C-alpha cells in the first residue's frame, strides 16, 4: 500500500471529520435536550457559508467575518427555535420533525431566491498574482488591446478601482471585430473608392486608440506582482490579467509596451506547508510528499479548541449543568428553577454558531463551494456522525465526526481499489449512508451513547 497516499487520506479525513464534528455538535445538543432532529441545522451551516462569502466580499477580514457570521447564525438559530419549534414543544415529536423538514426546505429555497442557485467560492483573501511580462512590439498591439477590452466590461468597477482609468469609452470587442471586418471587406473590394478606404482605416485606428492601456506598472519584462483589493475572486483576477497589454513607465521615464502571460496565483501564507515530509521511495516524486498546510493545522486547532471549550462549558459551568439537567428531565429541571426555554435557546445558539464556523471553514480550508443546497448533504453527514458517536453526547459527536470523515476520505481514495474497480469512488456518499443504516440497526445508541433508545 502506498503509505504517502494513506497518510494523505488520514489527514484529509481528520480535517473533514473535525468540520463534520462542528456541525454534528449542533444536532447532538439539540437532540439531547428536546429530542428533535433539527433538519434545518444544515441550513444554518449554509447560511454561515453565505454570510462568509458576503462579508469577505465586502472586504471584512476573516476573523471578524467568522465572528459576525457566528453571532448572526446564533441569533438565527434562536429565532428558528422560537418561531418553529417552541410552539410545538407539547405536540407529538412527529409534528416537530415534520416542521424541521419543512423548515429545511423552506430555508433552502429562500436562500435560492435571495442568492440564486449558482455555486460560489469564498473570495480570495490574499489576491496576489505574479504575471509573466514580455516586451511587445507595436504590431501586435491592436489585437492585444482588443482582447483586453473584451475582458473589461463585466468587471469594470474593479478595474477602475485598480487603475484609476475611465473605461466608459472603451469599445467592446465585438465593436472592434465589426469594424475590422468591414474594413477588410472594403479592402477586398476593388470597386471601393480610395477616399472611403482611407476614411475607414482612420476610423479603425481611432477605435483601437480608444482602448486604454494602463501605464502605471514599472516593469516591461520579467515577473510582475499584482495586488488586488481584498475580495477579488481568483477568476476575476485571472481573466483580467491574462493576455493584457499595458504601457510600462520605467524608472528612466520611458514608456514601453508589454504584454502579460502566464498568470500565477501567489499562494496564501496559510496555504504554505506547515509540516511536510516524504514517505515511501522517491522523494522527488510529488505523490510521495505528504503536506500539512497551515490551513489544515488551523482547522484542527479551531475544531479541537471548540470541542474542548464546549466540553468545559457543559461539564463545568452553570449553564452546562442546566443543560445536562434538561437533557435528563426537563420537567424536574424546571421545578428546580432552571429556565428550560433559556437553556434550549442557548443550545440552539451554540450549535448554530458552530455550524456557521464550519460553514466558513469548509470553503476556506477545503475549497468547497457555497450554494443554497450545500447544507443538505453535509448536514445529513454530520447527523450520521452524531448518530454514530451516540446522539446526545458531545464527545461522541466529535468521535463520530472524525470516524465519518475518515470513512469518507478512505472510501473516496480506496473504494475503487478495494472493490476491484466495481464500485467507483462516487459511491462514497452511499457508503456514508450505509454506515448510518448499519449503526442505527445494529447499535442505535452509537459508539459512546448510553441513553436507551425508545422501543416500540
Amino acid at each position: 500500500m502506498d503509505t504517502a497516499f494513506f497518510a494523505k487520506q488520514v489527514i484529509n479525513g481528520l480535517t473533514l471529520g473535525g468540520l463534520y464534528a462542528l456541525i454534528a455538535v449542533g444536532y447532538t445538543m439539540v437532540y439531547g435536550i428536546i429530542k428533535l432532529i433539527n433538519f434545518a441545522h444544515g441550513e444554518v451551516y449554509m447560511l454561515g457559508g453565505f454570510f462568509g462569502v458576503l462579508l469577505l466580499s465586502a472586504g471584512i477580514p476573516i476573523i471578524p467575518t467568522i465572528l459576525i457570521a457566528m453571532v448572526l447564525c446564533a441569533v438565527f438559530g434562536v429565532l428558528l427555535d422560537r418561531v418553529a419549534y417552541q410552539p410545538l414543544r407539547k405536540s407529538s415529536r412527529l409534528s416537530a420533525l415534520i416542521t424541521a423538514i419543512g423548515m429545511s426546505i423552506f430555508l433552502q429555497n429562500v436562500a435560492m431566491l435571495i442568492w440564486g442557485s449558482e455555486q460560489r467560492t469564498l473570495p480570495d483573501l490574499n489576491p496576489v498574482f505574479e504575471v509573466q511580462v514580455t516586451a511587445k512590439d507595436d504590431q501586435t498591439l491592436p489585437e492585444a488591446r482588443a482582447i483586453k477590452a473584451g475582458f473589461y466590461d463585466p468587471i469594470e468597477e474593479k478595474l477602475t478601482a485598480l487603475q484609476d482609468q475611465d473605461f466608459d469609452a472603451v469599445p467592446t470587442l465585438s465593436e472592434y471585430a465589426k469594424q475590422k471586418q468591414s474594413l477588410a471587406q472594403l479592402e477586398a473590394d476593388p470597386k471601393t473608392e480610395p477616399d472611403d478606404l482611407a476614411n475607414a482605416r482612420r476610423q479603425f485606428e481611432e477605435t483601437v486608440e480608444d482602448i486604454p492601456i494602463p501605464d502605471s506598472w514599472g516593469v516591461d519584462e520579467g515577473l510582475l506582482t499584482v495586488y488586488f483589493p481584498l475580495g477579488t475572486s481568483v477568476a476575476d483576477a485571472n481573466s483580467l490579467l491574462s493576455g493584457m497589454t499595458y504601457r510600462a513607465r520605467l524608472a528612466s521615464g520611458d514608456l514601453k509596451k508589454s504584454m502579460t502571460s502566464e498568470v500565477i496565483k501567489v499562494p496564501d501564507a496559510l496555504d504554505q506547508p506547515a509540516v511536510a515530509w516524504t514517505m515511501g521511495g522517491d522523494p522527488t516524486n510529488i505523490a510521495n510528499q505528504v503536506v500539512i498546510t497551515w490551513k489544515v493545522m488551523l482547522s484542527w486547532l479551531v475544531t479541537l479548541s471548540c470541542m474542548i471549550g464546549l466540553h468545559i462549558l457543559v461539564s463545568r459551568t452553570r449553564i452546562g449543568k442546566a443543560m445536562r439537567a434538561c437533557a435528563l428531565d426537563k420537567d424536574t429541571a424546571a421545578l428546580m428553577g432552571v429556565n428550560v426555554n433559556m437553556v434550549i435557546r442557548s443550545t440552539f445558539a451554540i450549535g448554530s454558531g458552530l455550524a456557521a464556523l464550519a460553514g466558513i471553514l469548509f470553503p476556506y480550508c477545503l475549497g468547497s463551494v457555497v450554494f443554497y443546497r450545500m447544507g443538505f448533504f453535509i448536514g445529513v453527514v454530520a447527523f450520521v456522525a452524531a448518530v454514530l458517536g451516540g446522539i446526545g453526547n458531545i464527545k461522541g459527536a466529535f468521535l463520530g465526526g472524525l470516524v465519518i470523515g475518515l470513512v469518507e476520505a478512505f472510501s473516496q481514495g480506496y473504494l475503487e481499489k478495494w472493490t476491484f474497480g466495481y464500485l467507483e469512488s462516487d459511491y462514497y456518499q452511499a457508503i456514508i449512508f450505509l454506515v448510518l443504516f448499519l449503526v442505527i440497526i445494529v447499535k442505535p445508541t452509537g459508539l459512546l451513547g448510553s441513553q436507551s433508545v425508545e422501543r416500540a
Partner: protein
Amino acid sequence: MGERLRALLSSPRWTILVVLLLVAIVLPAFYYADVNADSDGHQSAAWVVRTMDVAVLVMLYAVLALGLNVVCGDAGLLDLGYVAFVIIGAYTTALLYRLPFFQFPGAWIVCLLLAGLLCAVFGWLRGAPTLHLSGDYYAIVTFAFAQILFFVVQNEVALTGGPKGLKDYPAITLAYDLQESEIQGDLTVLEPLVFDVDGEIVPDDDGGAIVTVTSPRTYTVKPNGEFTMEDGRDGFSVKAKGNDELPWYLELTQGNGSILRADRGRIGSFDPLELRALRASEFASLDEGDQRGVQFVIPDDAASVPFTARVTVFPPVEASFTPGRSVYTGPREDAPGVTGEDADALPTLEYVGPKYLFYQVGGASTGVELLKKQGKFESQMGYDLDWTTRSYYDTILFDFDRDNYHFLIDDVSLGEGRHAVAMGVKVKMPDGVIFEKSPAFFYIVLVTLLLTVFVMMRIQRTRVGRALFAIKANPLSAKSSGIAIWKYKMIAFGVSAFFGGVGGGLLAFKFEILSPNVFTFWMSVIVLCCVVLGGMASVPGVLLGTVALMSLGELLRERIPIVDVKVPEQARFLAFGAILILIMLFRSQGLFPPIGRRAREVDSSGARRFFRLKRGGETNGEDE
C-alpha cells in the same frame, strides 16, 4: 349498500371526492383522439390536455400518498425514504417491460405487479431489522435507504442509464399483432430551383481562394420565400431564412469546364477556404502531388479569374395524402392549434425535395422506437434509414433516389388515433400503443387509484387496520393484548412498498424517460406533504390533500395571469416547506383528519402557543 352509500355521501369530504371522480370519468370525453384533426376545431383544447396531464399526475401521487399513509398514518412511523420504492418500481417496470419475454398483451400489468412485489420484498428487508425502531430513528433509516438507492441508480449506468436517464422502454402496448397497410398517395413536387451566379476568384495569401460574387447580390426563392441568398465580400456566403433544414448545393464551373460541387444537407455558409487558388508561378513551383489540391490557377498578370456558379435549391413541397386527411407542412410553431411545449402536436410532414424526406410525428415517437427495436421496419425500396433523435420528436431521414418523384405512402395507425405516415417504406406497427397523454392511460391510472382506495379502506376497516391503530396508540398495551406487532408492521411495510412500486411503475410510463433527478429526497417530501396536509390515517383526507397540494404545485408552474410572472421552479418547494410548517403549527392533524378522532384530537396547541395564547402552564414541557 344503499344506506352505506347515503352515509358516504353525507360526509362532505366523500361528496367532494365523488364529484371529482365523476369529473375525472367524464374529462377524457373532451379529448379528441384524432390528433390529425383539421383546424376546424376538431382538436383537443389545450386546457383539456393540460388538465388530463395534471389529473394523471395527481392520481399517481394519490396512489403513492395512500401507500405512504399505511406506514405514516396507520402505523404512525415516519417514512422519509418512500421514494426508494418509487425508484425500484419505476426502474423494475421499465427494465422488465423491454425484455422480449414481456411482449405479450397484458404484460404491462404483470410488470407492474412484479415491480410492486419486488418493492414489497425490499420493504420487508428494510423493515425487518428496524422493527424495534420508532420515531426519528425509523425516519433516518428510511432516509438512508432511499439515499443509498439513489446513488446506486445514479452510478449503475449500465443498468439504469445513470444521470442521463433510461428511455429505451416501450409505452404500454395492448396488442402486438402487427398492422400492415399500403395506401397510395401523390406528392406534388416542385422542381428544384436552379440559377447561376457570376463571380470571380482571387487567390489569398494563404493559398486559399476568395470567391466574390459579382452578379446580382440577393436571390430570393419563391414561392415560400424561405430562401434568401446574400453575397458577402469576405467570401461567398449563402444564408437561409426561415427554414434551416432546406438542402441546397452549389456547383462551381471552373475555367476548364469541370464542375465543383459544394453539397450541404443543411444551409450553412459556404466556406471558400475549401477551395485553393494559386498564382500560375507559385503553382508551377509545387510538386505534382501538391498541385492536385489546387482548384484554380490564376495567371500571374490577371487579378482574378471569373467563374460561374450554379446554385440549386430544393424548395419545400406540398404533399397530399389520403382524402379526408389533411397534413400540415411547415414549421411546427406555425401549425394550427399548436400551443406551447406540451400541446399535442399535429404530425408534421415536411418533404424538402427529392433528396431527403423529413418525417416527424409528435408524441408518437415511442411507437416508432418500439418498431425500431423489434426490427420490423422493412425498407421496400432498399433505401437506408437514418435515425436522428431530437428532444421531443424523432426525425426519420429517408434517403431517396433523386430521380424518383412518386412514392408509396404507408399510413399506419398507431392506435389512439395516431397515424404514422411513411413514404416508400412498408411499416409494420403494433396496434394499441397507449401513450401517456391518451385517455386510455388516464383510465388505467384512475382504475389503479380506485383499487388502491378500495384496498386502503379495507385495510383500515379490518383486523390489520385496527391492530395498526392499537400499535400506534400504545405499543405496550397492544402487545399485552396479544397483537403480534411484527406481523402487522410487516404487513404495513409490504403493502406500503407494494403501492409505492406500482405507482412508480405507472410513473415510468407517464414520464417516458426515467431520470434519477426526478427521484430525489424531495419526491419523498412531496408525497409526505400530501399525506400530512390531508390528514394522516384518513383515506379521503390523504386524497383531498394530494389533490390540493399537487394542483397547487402544478398551478405554480403556470404563469400568474395578471402580473405575468412565472414562479421559479424551486419556489414551488418553498411553498411545500411553508405548507408543512404551517400545517404542523396550526392544524397538526391535517386538513381532513380521520372523522372519529377529529373532535377530540385536533391539536391547535401549536398555534395557540405560536400566538402566545397560553392556556395555563409553562410551554416547555416534555412531548406526549
